């Protein structure tokens, strides 16, 4: 189960951050913030040898209590998913979580009432993320 899901613009401003109420919200924000540097490093330092072109960046850096995963779209939107070691996502689920958040974001951009760059307040998007964090199947 994800304890935090965050969506950031290419300039690293947060469009949306949600964390499980059982977790320390400030700590989650901090972890997301720290992961930005790691993401940028991964994007810039890909050599010819290890340049997978995958949008999914995998685990970003080690931490005692959490696993932090990153994903960057072709449109430079960064998505960060944090899982708790004590309550991990199912195998391979990190990619699925990112795929669903990404799809939710695409739907949002295609919504004519949404202006790209605005903070996300759209109910369908919020529902998608809430379901993902609770580990329930998306309707």
């Amino acid at each position, binding site marked *: 189960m994800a304890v935090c899901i965050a969506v950031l613009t*290419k300039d690293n401003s947060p469009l949306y951050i949600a964390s499980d109420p059982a977790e320390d919200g400030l700590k989650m924000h901090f972890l997301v913030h720290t992961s930005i540097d790691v993401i940028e490093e991964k994007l810039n330092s890909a050599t010819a040898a290890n340049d997978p*072109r*995958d*949008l999914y960046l995998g685990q970003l850096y080690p931490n005692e209590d959490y696993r932090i995963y990153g994903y*960057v*779209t*072709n*449109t*430079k939107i960064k998505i960060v998913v944090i899982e708790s070691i004590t309550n991990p996502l199912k195998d391979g689920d990190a990619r699925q979580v990112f795929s669903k958040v*990404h*799809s939710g*974001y*695409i739907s949002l*951009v*295609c919504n*004519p009432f949404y202006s*790209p760059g605005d903070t996300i307040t759209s109910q369908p998007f919020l529902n998608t993320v809430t379901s993902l964090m609770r580990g329930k199947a998306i309707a």
Partner: protein
Amino acid sequence: SRGINADYGYSPDSLFDGLHHQMIKYFEETHGRENVIQCMEKMGYRVGFSLIEKATKEEARVKEDVDIVKYICKDLWNMVFRKQADNLKTNHTGTFVIQDNRFRFLTRVSQSDQYKQRGELYVAFTCGVVKGALSNFGLPCSVAAEIEMLPTVKVTLTLQQPAN
């Protein structure tokens, strides 16, 4: 099944062609001829932006500026016009020229100079689409259209940052 529209001889293409033409007429009547291009471009921008958001989800990461412009010429052009652009030129310092030899919105216009100026109005929406698409890729640019001989259209993009 081709759907009910095909049975009547209409396709989504001719529906959009009609709408596109009416959009130009509408802006001309309400905002004046001198503002048509700006209005059409603005609309195209948001469309291009959304198209790219949707289309690039399953694509591998597109990295270099040149690859992004090539994506526009092949994949985006295919999505919008069902054909690829016919030619791409660059000066390797951030300016690219995309050429379409049978620009969809001008294929039914006779090849006479008197229509060239009016023809510019028919490229404005497409310029906006290109601008919005590139912007969403992280490459803001200015876009200008040139019609030397109908129905060939050249779209010049100038990237606002130094090329990679």
